[in-house]
């Protein structure tokens, strides 16, 4: 082998090794960020390929496999969770799941080429990962999105999304709590309302 070619090869190997060294830890150590980016990619694929009821069903599938919906529902119900019967709890989880799927498929209906840039991941002492990201729009300011990811026996799951500091779970919690208070502190009217909305 002539010397310049040999040198070039060595250079390429060194460069490759450096890239591998930098890239490998970033990929291997950040499954939470991977979860968020693959979920976003999956959602965008669905939006491009499907519409209407099919889209909603596919989005619901993504929510079930990537998000911890029972946990989110439990947190959203707050202190009222313990007061509800197991049957009410199951119905509540089911109703919120449909509501979320409907909301997300409608939100994505407005999709027009936005991209998600994943930022840094913060690990909390209680095992929660916060993945920062930025939704870049084709026109206008980028939107700040933070994802809360938890480790479950079945694997990592997303448990909350914060849009410009507004947590979906916290907002639901205030919303549901206020509704329950206005209906005599009972959970049943809320479940009925959510089920009626899901059927619509």
């Amino acid at each position, binding site marked *: 082998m002539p010397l310049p070619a040999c040198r070039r090869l060595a250079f390429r190997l060194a460069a490759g090794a450096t890239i591998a060294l930098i890239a490998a830890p970033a990929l291997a150590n950040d499954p939470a960020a991977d979860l968020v980016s693959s979920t976003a990619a999956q959602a965008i694929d669905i939006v491009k390929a499907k519409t209407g009821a099919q889209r909603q069903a596919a989005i619901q599938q993504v929510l079930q496999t990537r998000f911890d919906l029972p946990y989110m529902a439990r947190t959203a119900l*707050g202190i009222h969770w313990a007061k509800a019967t197991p049957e009410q709890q199951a119905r509540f989880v089911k109703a919120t799941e449909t509501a979320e799927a409907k*909301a997300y498929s409608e939100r994505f209906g407005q999709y027009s080429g936005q991209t998600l840039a994943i930022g840094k991941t913060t690990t909390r002492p*209680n095992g929660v990962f916060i993945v920062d990201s930025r939704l870049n729009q084709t026109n206008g300011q980028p939107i700040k999105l933070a994802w809360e990811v938890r480790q479950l026996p079945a694997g990592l799951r997303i448990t909350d999304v914060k849009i410009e500091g*507004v947590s979906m779970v916290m907002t639901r919690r205030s919303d549901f*709590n*206020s*509704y329950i208070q206005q209906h005599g502190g009972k959970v049943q009217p809320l479940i009925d309302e*959510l089920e009626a909305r899901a059927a619509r």
Partner: protein
Amino acid sequence: MDPGLALMIASVFKVATRVRRSVAATAVAATLVSGCAVNDTGAAEVWDPIETPNRFIFSINRAVDVMAIRPVTVLYRDWVPEPAQKSVRNLLDNLGEPVTAINEVFQGDPSRAATTMARFLVNSTIGLAGLFDVASMLGMERTKTDAGQTIGIWAGKGVEPENGGFYLVLPLAGPSNARDATGLMIDYAIDPFQILPIAFNWDWFYYSVPRYGLNVIDYRSRTMFALDDIEKNSVDYYAALRSAYTQNRAELIRAKRDKTDTKGELERRDNLALVR
């Protein structure tokens, strides 16, 4: 500058500072009161002692919005060409820059304030009275802040930014709280583009009315998507918006406070898992 005008601006400044101090004190007092009232597990609801009048104003606002503001905004959004909308936004943003700069000084960020003033000078001249955002093309990024955030920053470490005093729904302006409503008044008092028309006796009808009108339409068009989403996906729109507003304002203030001090907020979320 006319010495009378300078004196007037100086006195407005003095009043604004005094107001700011008393508001900070009120905010601190409010925190102490509310701090006693609830067990702060990190999942406390927004403090809303005047919920009934708030809901009343809220329903009036909604009626006005449905009947007048939203339809006009939809027409504006769908029929006015996008470059024109962008120029209107730039113009309004430019008029707001002096207030942002003053607040940035009080927030202890004079270099940021200098950039904002440079932006204002560049856009007012080369940018044709603010119609074009030339400064952004030159790499001077726009920042927006208000006196509500300034109070939130100076309220002290013990005051969570979620705590802005009691929740308040303002006629037309919508969700607010003691802190942000006071901030709004301060911003109004220190705004040169509010002082100048009075000082020079500009015709109110040709200046203030169009500015307010455009501001309302522009602001409504920007919040349309988010507000529609919250309304559609909530069982109690008032409560959902109250929570979303409080969280969003807290995020803006927290980002300005110690940049690394996200601990408090994250701890709140950790606690949240314990309450259920």
